[in-house]
Structure formats: C-alpha cells, structure tokens
C-alpha cells in the first residue's frame, strides 16, 4: 500500500522528470519535508510544496558568471549524489551556464538569447561574481562586457539570485584597493527583486532552498536588511555554534595546537568571526552535514558578510581594533595614558587631601554647634 495514490504526472513537468528518473513520490516528499524545515516553513507546507513543484514546468534558469573563482558553481555541483541538490537540478532547466553547458561560442550565446526570448519575464537569473566598472576589458564574455551582459539579461528576469559574496557584495575582487572597480549585482540593478545568497561559497542547500521557495511560491522569501533570506541567515554562526558553551564559560583556545584547542574550546581569541556572521553553517553544515569550519578547528572567517576581506585580520580576536594604524594606536595610547595619569594624580591628591584632613571622629563630632 506504499504508493496507493500516485500523483498526477503531467508531461513536461518536474513530476514527469522525476518519474523518469525512478524517484518515488515518497522520496520526493522527504526532499520537500527537508526543504520545508530548512526554510522554516510550517510542516504542513511540505505536501503543498510537493504538489506545487511536481506540477510546475521546469523553471528556466540563466546563470551568469562574472569576476569569480567558480567556487560557487563547485559548491553546488560537487554535492554528493544522490542528494537534494542533484534532485533540485532536475527541477530547473539550466539554459545557460558557461561552466556546465556543452555548447560554446556562438551556440552558447544563442542558447542564452533563446531562453531570454522564450521565457521573457519568467526566467530566473542567477549571477555569481562581481562586475568590474573600471575597464570593461577586465572581464568579458563573447566580447560582451560583464556590465552589459548583466543589464541585458536582467531586463527580462522574474528575479535575480546573487550567488556568493562577490555577486552579493563585491567580494574578494572588491577588496581594498579594488583594482577593477568591482561592484555587486545590487549596486547596479535596481528594478528587479534580488535575493543575496552570500558565502564564499554559499552552502549548497541554501541555494536549493531558495530555488525551491521560488518554485513553490513564485516569489522571493523574506529577506534581511542585507537582502539575505532570513530562514538561512537569521542567526549568527556564534548563536548556533556547538562550541558556544565554552565561550559562555570563558574557555578559549589560545593557539591552534594548545590543550584548549584539542579540547574543542571556543576559537574567539584565534579570530573566529562567528559572533558577527549570519549564515547557516553551524546548523546545516557542509558536505552532506559532515562538518563546518569551526568543527574542523578553524574559526569562522565571516565569508557571508559584506567586505569580510577588509574587516580586519583573520586571526585577531574580534575585540581587537582593526581600522587604526599602529602609530595612531601608539599616539592614542600615549595621549590616553597621559590624560589618565593626570586625572589619576589629581584624583589621588584630592582623596589624599581629604584623608589628611580626616581627624578622628568622636561622639562630640556628630553634633553641630548651632543645633
């Protein structure tokens, strides 16, 4: 009685694609339940999501890669099979992606033009990498500058997903002194809904979760002030970190190979940026839920936050000053010490004078003469 009720399988839909691959409804429902949980939706939404996705036509997706390292693509495609991530790729029609597509040159660009024409206003645009605003020659594809390609493709998109910290906030290309004049997608595209999925790279399941949300509800999930889906970026690594109890107890590793580090104590003093980094690493983890940086013994570097590369040394505790130069620091310390010494001297002498003026109190001293 396992499959008493088979779903209606419409030709050309996701449901059909899944059936062809021998994926049962039970397995598909499990996937939807997991995604529902990850997206912080009510459990009842799992079957609704399954219905919506299985009946949906495969979503046309155009993926553009600009100034990037392909790490984001690696992250999403290198997931272990068979996982949610692979399944999700059967739910979309990836019409253009230069790393993955077989076509090249004219044929490749033709695929993009065709997808844009056929699905005008409906396709989803995924971007990884930042856009150079300096010399257009810094990064071109088929002789088209990144800027022009983005603006042209964004025109007919239903929504844009900025994958990775480069597309979301400029990332490493934008790091000081930003030689290419790199900007994020959100810096130049103003008339389309943009979902930022930062991370260097982002967690695969966060990507697929955002896609599933788009397929189910046809809209974008609730976003935080930095344009990130709240369901994945709602809490800091620190708040969800399994090493948090050590932080609360003041138990810190002082170096990467001391006894405290071996005991798995908090890495705050070794520069962990967990307290200021919003991401889901501590809950969903990486590589099929195997581990995440803090669990492997290295502090969080804060890769899902804007300008993380310029936010101070990676191995200095967050409480250390980052923006001042050593000479400024020295001058400030000298000035502070001098002011402190002066006021201390003044206060000490005030108190000493009061002490010196103290004559032993007798009971006669408790009454005023005029009283």
């Amino acid at each position, binding site marked *: 009685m396992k499959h008493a009720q088979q779903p209606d399988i419409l030709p050309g839909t996701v449901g059909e694609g899944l059936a062809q691959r021998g994926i049962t409804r039970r397995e598909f429902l499990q996937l939807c339940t997991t995604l529902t949980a990850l997206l912080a939706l009510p459990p009842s939404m799992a079957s609704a999501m399954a219905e919506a996705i299985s009946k949906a036509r495969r979503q046309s997706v155009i993926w553009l890669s600009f100034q990037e390292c392909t790490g984001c693509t690696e992250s999403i495609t290198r997931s272990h099979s068979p996982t949610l991530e692979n399944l999700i790729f059967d739910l979309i029609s990836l019409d253009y992606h230069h790393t993955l597509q077989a076509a090249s040159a004219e044929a490749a660009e033709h695929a993009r033009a065709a997808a844009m024409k056929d699905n005008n206003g409906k396709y989803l645009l995924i971007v990884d990498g930042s856009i150079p605003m300096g010399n257009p020659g810094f990064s071109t594809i088929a002789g088209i500058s990144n800027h022009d390609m983005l603006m042209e493709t964004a025109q007919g998109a239903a929504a844009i997903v900025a994958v990775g910290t480069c597309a979301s906030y400029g990332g490493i290309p934008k790091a000081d002194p930003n030689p290419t004049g790199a900007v994020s997608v959100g810096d130049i595209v103003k008339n389309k809904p943009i979902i930022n999925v930062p991370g260097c790279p982002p967690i695969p399941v966060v990507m697929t979760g955002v896609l599933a949300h788009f397929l189910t509800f046809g809209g974008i999930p609730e976003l935080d002030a930095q344009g990130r889906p709240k369901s994945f970026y709602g809490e800091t690594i620190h708040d969800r970190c399994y090493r948090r109890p050590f932080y609360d107890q003041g138990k810190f590793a002082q170096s990467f190979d001391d006894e405290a580090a071996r005991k798995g104590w908090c890495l705050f003093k070794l520069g962990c940026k967990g307290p200021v980094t919003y991401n889901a690493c501590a809950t969903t983890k990486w590589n099929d839920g195997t581990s995440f940086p803090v669990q492997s013994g290295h502090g969080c570097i804060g890769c899902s936050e804007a300008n993380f590369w310029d936010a101070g040394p990676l191995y200095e505790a967050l409480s250390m000053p980052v923006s001042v130069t050593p000479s400024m620091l020295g001058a400030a310390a000298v000035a502070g010490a001098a002011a402190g010494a002066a006021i201390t001297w003044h206060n000490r002498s005030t108190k000493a004078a009061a002490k010196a003026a103290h004559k032993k*109190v007798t009971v006669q*001293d408790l009454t*005023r003469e005029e009283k």
Partner: protein
Amino acid sequence: MSATLAKGISAFKEVIDAPIASFFSSCVHCGLCAEACLFYTETSEAKYTPIHKLEPLRRIWKQEYTLLGMLGKMLGLSKPVTDAELAEWEPLVYDSCTLCGRCSMVCPVGNDITYMIRKMREGMAASGHAPEDMIAATTRAINIGSPMGVKWPAVQAQIRHVQADTGIDVPVEREGADYLVVMSSMEIINFPEYLSALSRIFKQAGVSWTLAQDAFEATNSGIQIGASDLAREIVSRIVVAAERLKVKCVISPECGHAFTALRWEGPNLMGRPYGFEVKHILEVLDELQKAGKLKTSGKDKRPLTYHDPCQIARRGGVVEQPRRLLSEIAADFREMSDAGVMNWCCGGGGGVSAITRAEPLRLQAFKIKKRQIEATGVQTLITACANCRIVLEEGIEHNHMKVEVIGLTELLAQYLVEESTP
C-alpha cells in the same frame, strides 16, 4: 570639635573609592531600584528611589573626580552641595533606608547601592546631618558600652536568671574556650530567652564557650550612623576580648547588622585579618546539627514561616541554614513569597528602628511585610534577628494581626532532647 559642612564634604571625598566611581559612571538611570525598595513601593514617592538618595554624593564625585564635572564646577555650571540640601537628604539617607540591600540585587549594571548609602552616611554624620536619635544611641554605645545603655550588671542578672532556671553554669571569661558569645542589647533586655536557649543547646552539644565582661555587646551603632572611627572602636572591643580569651570563633547573635559589622566590616575597619573566625549563630547551629550534636525530638505543629533578616540572608549569605534547622522541628513550614535573598525588609534595619520620627514611615513600609505574612496564612513567624523581631512585633501590634514572633534559636531549644548529665 563639632560637625561642619566642610568636614562632611571632606568625608564624602574620602569615601569615594573605585567601586563608587564605577557605580556612578555606570548607572543607566533605569529606575529599577525603585521597585526593589519597600519605602518606594509602599508610598509611591519618587524621592525614595534608592539611587536618588545618593544625589549629593554623586555630585561631589562628579565635581571632584571627573573632568567634565571639574570644568562645570570651575565655570559655575553645577551647584555645590549645601547644608540645606544635606538637611533635606537626611530623611532619605537614614529614615528611608534600612541598608537592606534589595536595590543592589536588582541593579542591572551591578551597582551596590547599599554600599554607597553606607559610605554616604560617613559624610552625613561628619556634617552633622545624622538623626538625633542615632547620635544619642552612638554616644551611649561609645560612652556606656551599649546603644541601649545596658551595662555588664544587667548581663550578670540575666546569667543568674538562666542559672536559676536551667541549672546550667554560664561560663564567663573562660580563656581557651572555642566560642565567644556576644549578644545584642535587645536580647539582654527584651529577649532573655536567647541566652537561656543557647546555654541549653551548647550544654547538650558539649560546646566550650564563654561570655566576656568587656565585650558582650555585638551591635555597632558606628556602622549604622556612618562613623567608621567609632565603628572601629566598638568592633575592636570584641576583637580584643576574643584575642585575649584565645577563642577560635566569635558567634554573632540573632542580630542582622551585628553580623555585618563583625563579619564583613570589622576586618576592614581594623585594617587586619582577625585571629579567629566569625560565624552567625544559625551557621553554628547548622554545623552542630550536621555533626549530629544537636538532637531534637518532635515537631511544631503550628503552621509557621521564616522572615529572612536582610543582613543575614541577603548581605550575609545565611539562607539554607535556617531552612535546614526548621525542617527538623517544623511540621508545617510555609515559605514566604520572595523568601531568601530577595526577601522584603521588616522596615527597621540599618538604624531606622532607632529613629523616633521615622515611625509613621516605617509602619507604612511594613504593609509589604503584612501582605507577605498574611499570604502564608500563618500565626507564627520565626526570625533570627532581634531588631527584625521588635520591628515585626510593633508592626503586627499596630495592624492588630494575630501573629507571634519567635527567635529561631529559642524555638530550636524548645524541641531539644535534654539528656541527663553524664
């Protein structure tokens, strides 16, 4: 020699230390301390907000010890502290503060407001703005030896009384005894049961103890009025006697501030560690019971509750001991709301019970205690502080409540198994 404003200001400057400076600078003006103070909750008068009671001291700190304050003082932007102002503050610093320490517990930034009031009283006393009644009590404590004017013969009369009643020999001036017992004058005059109960318990437990002729009084008016020099003189009587008699431990009686004076302030006033320990009588009784030396039989069937004296529970840390002791002898013990470290003060601690003019305010503040007692539905109230006991009895009388107040030591002695002398 007399009190002057200049002496008061100088004393304020002298008492401002690192804790006070950090407390004032970290106050966020949240007003939470108001809700913790029984004088505020029972009157709803904003002037009874604990931190407000420190305003003159705060201004002295600001004007003398902070850069902005010094500038302000130089430019005449901040008004100096005057006699008139201190006179206005006198009822706030004395009449409406029992040094109960409840405000210090709730302060979100951890300011020990009670500590500051205690220090502020130094300047108030030096400037002649301490209540007359407290000046009189302190004068008696220094000149006669006890704030209530009790002298050694009164204690001797007590001793004879105990000996006649119980047949137990009360040891006096016994060198090398383990414990030196001191009392509060209220126990000598109002509650003679204490000495009798103690004699019987110690006899049964085989405790070696003694009284001292020149150090029978444990209370310390110098602490309450805020005159450290006098407080030192009073506490040193006990320290000298304890070291002369070579006792191992001095037992603070059922009196709140005596414990604070002897246990916490004493070594700081003396400027050196004691050569002996100081324990509250409840701590000693609890130890005896744990060691199996305190045998009781039967349980009190009356429903009863326990009033935690502030200086013993909140400021002194003796919270579990009375409960353990009561669990042995009380069949129907009912905990009061906010019991333990957050208990509400009786309204008469910190010297307030000695101030005659404060009586109406004290009785008004007693309403919280009245509600607490009534909520438990008991007619027997146990406590471990003679001052609490007197103030509670006054409040109970004033409100025509049918509640009896009993000291814990005394109650314990009632259930003592007295063995025949071996």
